[in-house]
């Protein structure tokens, strides 16, 4: 057991920290968010140059051969600055589908383009009525000769409005909520029959509702077994949850720092409010919650590589529970310790709080994962 970073990892972190410091102040973030895309294409290029976009991919596929730890370091840094660029949709979700399910030619066709910053993906898995059930899919894919034809509506597609390619989860067989009978299809966002309605999200990012009407997909755009995508999706979402845990820890760390700084500088009754013991102890409890979350972020990162699917699922659910609970406590209490200023749009803290809230809702909230975990055989068995 070893918590030290390798030299390469430390260098990655340092470069990233420098870039964030120079280019991702809160005012810059507002400016990036105000564009039509909702993020900065220039920063996206910078990420490519730093090797972030190819980090988790095998060198053979045109990546840099990094792993879950690299993704953790990147997402944590992005969390601190509330980065808007679609790293999760493109690299973790879309890229994850390629890593876990795609054929060599498919990987060859897309991964170098992703690493170069030329291709952005979005994963269209959810639908209006699916809630937290990954396999609740009504969108249909029927065979037509060698090709497939997709029909249906996908919802809450992260950065679905700006991605060049969509990876669409559709039902090829089986009943509406079955894990089997699902396929993943690569769809060109500009393909005939694809209609996208983009919108801003509560946390200042972008998403889209996407309608698919008679969209034709060639056989070579199908990821793996057209009836076996369920297991691939599950694995990809586990990676995404681990990545979101890291982002959340970054957000919480930033919220803690801003709050601590505010407690030191804000004066009431002639003294810094950080001299009040009740507030000191609240901040201490927030520190405990943050350290517990950081530990579970590391645990989730480590366990994404676990071979036993049951142990992996328990670990990921456990991490999502801890992150969700720590995030709610820290987000709410950081707001409380600030007072009114935290309620204003110009101040960063409220945006950190909103991002934490939306991360909890992504891929199942804390209650949902606690329920899933409680139906299994225990973390220490």
């Amino acid at each position: 057991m070893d918590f030290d970073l390798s030299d390469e990892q430390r260098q990655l972190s340092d470069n990233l920290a420098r870039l964030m410091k120079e280019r991702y102040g809160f005012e810059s973030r507002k400016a990036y968010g105000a564009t039509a895309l909702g993020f900065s294409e220039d920063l996206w290029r910078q990420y490519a140059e730093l090797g972030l976009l190819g980090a988790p991919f095998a060198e053979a596929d045109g990546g840099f051969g990094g792993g879950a730890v690299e993704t953790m370091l990147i997402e944590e840094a992005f969390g601190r600055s509330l980065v808007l660029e679609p790293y999760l949709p493109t690299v973790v979700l879309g890229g994850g589908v390629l890593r876990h399910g795609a054929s060599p030619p498919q990987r060859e066709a897309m991964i170098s383009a992703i690493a170069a910053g030329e291709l952005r993906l979005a994963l269209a898995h959810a639908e209006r009525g699916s809630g937290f059930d990954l396999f609740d899919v009504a969108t249909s894919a029927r065979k037509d000769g060698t090709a497939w034809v997709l029909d249906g509506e996908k919802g809450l597609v992260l950065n679905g409005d700006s991605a060049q390619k969509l990876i669409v989860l559709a039902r090829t067989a089986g009943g509406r909520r079955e894990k089997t009978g699902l396929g993943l299809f690569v769809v060109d966002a500009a393909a005939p029959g694809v209609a996208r309605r983009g919108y801003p999200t509560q946390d200042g990012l972008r998403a889209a509702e996407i309608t698919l009407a008679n969209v034709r997909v060639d056989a070579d755009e199908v990821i793996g077994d057209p009836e076996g995508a369920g297991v691939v999706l599950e694995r990809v979402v586990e990676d995404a949850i681990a990545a979101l845990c890291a982002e959340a820890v970054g957000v919480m760390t930033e919220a803690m720092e801003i709050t601590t700084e505010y407690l030191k500088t804000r004066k009431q009754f002639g003294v810094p409010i950080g001299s009040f013991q009740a507030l000191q102890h609240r901040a201490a409890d927030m520190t405990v919650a943050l350290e517990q979350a950081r530990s579970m972020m590391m645990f989730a990162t480590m366990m994404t590589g676990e071979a036993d699917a049951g142990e992996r699922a328990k670990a990921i659910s456990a991490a999502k529970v801890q992150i969700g609970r720590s995030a709610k406590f820290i987000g709410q209490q950081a707001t409380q310790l600030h007072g009114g200023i935290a309620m204003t749009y110009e101040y960063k803290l409220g945006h950190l709080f909103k991002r934490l809230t939306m991360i909890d809702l992504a891929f199942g909230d804390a209650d949902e994962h606690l329920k899933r975990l409680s139906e299994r055989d225990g973390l220490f068995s």
Partner: protein
Amino acid sequence: MDLSFSADEVSFREEVRSFVRDNLPAAIRDKLASGRHASKDDMVAWTRILAAKGWSVPHWPVEWGGTGWSPIKLSIFNDEIQRGHAPESLAFGTSMVGPVIHTFGSQAQKERFLPRIVDLRDWWCQGFSEPGAGSDLAGLRTSAKREGDGWVINGQKTWTTLAQYADWIFVLARTDASVKKQEGISFFLVDMKSPGIAVRPIQTIDGGHEVNEVFLDNVKIPAENIVGQENKGWDYAKFLLSNERSGIARVGVSKARLAKIRRLAALPTYGEKPKMDDPMFRMKLAAVEVELKALEMTQMRVISAIRPGEKPKPNPMSSVLKIKGSELQQATTELLMDVVGPYALPFQPEREDGERWNEPPVGPDWASTIAPTYFNTRKVSIYGGSNEIQRSIIAKAILGL
């Protein structure tokens, strides 16, 4: 000891409930029920409907338009207004400056200002908090200096709710900097049309515009617009704030939200079963209902300790109401977040008049207000004296620590 409502109280509740049902315009009710906000026009319209019935300032002395209802009946009335999704009266006039004027104001001030509050001809806002004076309100720096037979006010106020609509603002300003900070403050009534007043909106994290900064730059006001005695403003402010706290449990608001939660949780929004069929959710809901029922009783205990006709005096138990009431308002918004689930994500801000935009909603048509309400409701444990301030009041005034 009889803890059930009397027959008279029960029929009174029914009378109020049916009045609201029959007289509140449907458009306003639906807007508030959906979690959106009443516009200025909505509030004026509803206040005038109540005024016509003689119910717009029920807690005031009868001579100024009050009803003479018992404290219990007053709380039943507020409860039904909140449950019925009617706009609440503009507290800055009816519960803050109004009582200050009819308790401490001159006869001329009473005759000039009170009738215009009764039917909301004057929209009042509150000039208390400052950038440097939040929990430490008495540390305020806005100054008022005598000039001729009037006053000149300079300073900045903040968190001024709905100042964008206001005709008048009541202002705490320092009139003597040489004494202990609580003893050099006076209470002024200021016309928002006075030269030197500027209002700057503060956008809140939910995207809304509810609060403002108000700048006072050499604002001249006539001598008759000071309330009561010079340098006694802090006493009037404490009186005002204790009135504010007793109503701040907002039990009716939480009850209305619980009813909404049960309605929405019964819908087949996601998957096979409605959220209401989830045992864990039901238990979380039940736990909040228990606390709210207890709070309702606690509020009744506090209210019934006020003898009819008696001048309201600060009661530290109102700090208990503030803490628990704000926690429960927040808890109900968290339950709504559980109900809306993933479709809390799309950001679809409402218009300032509380109307919808034209494009169709993304996701369930009731979803768009829920996350903003959750974020916005974090304020209730901050304003009106933060819950930390309330705990210190309890420790000092109830426990003697």
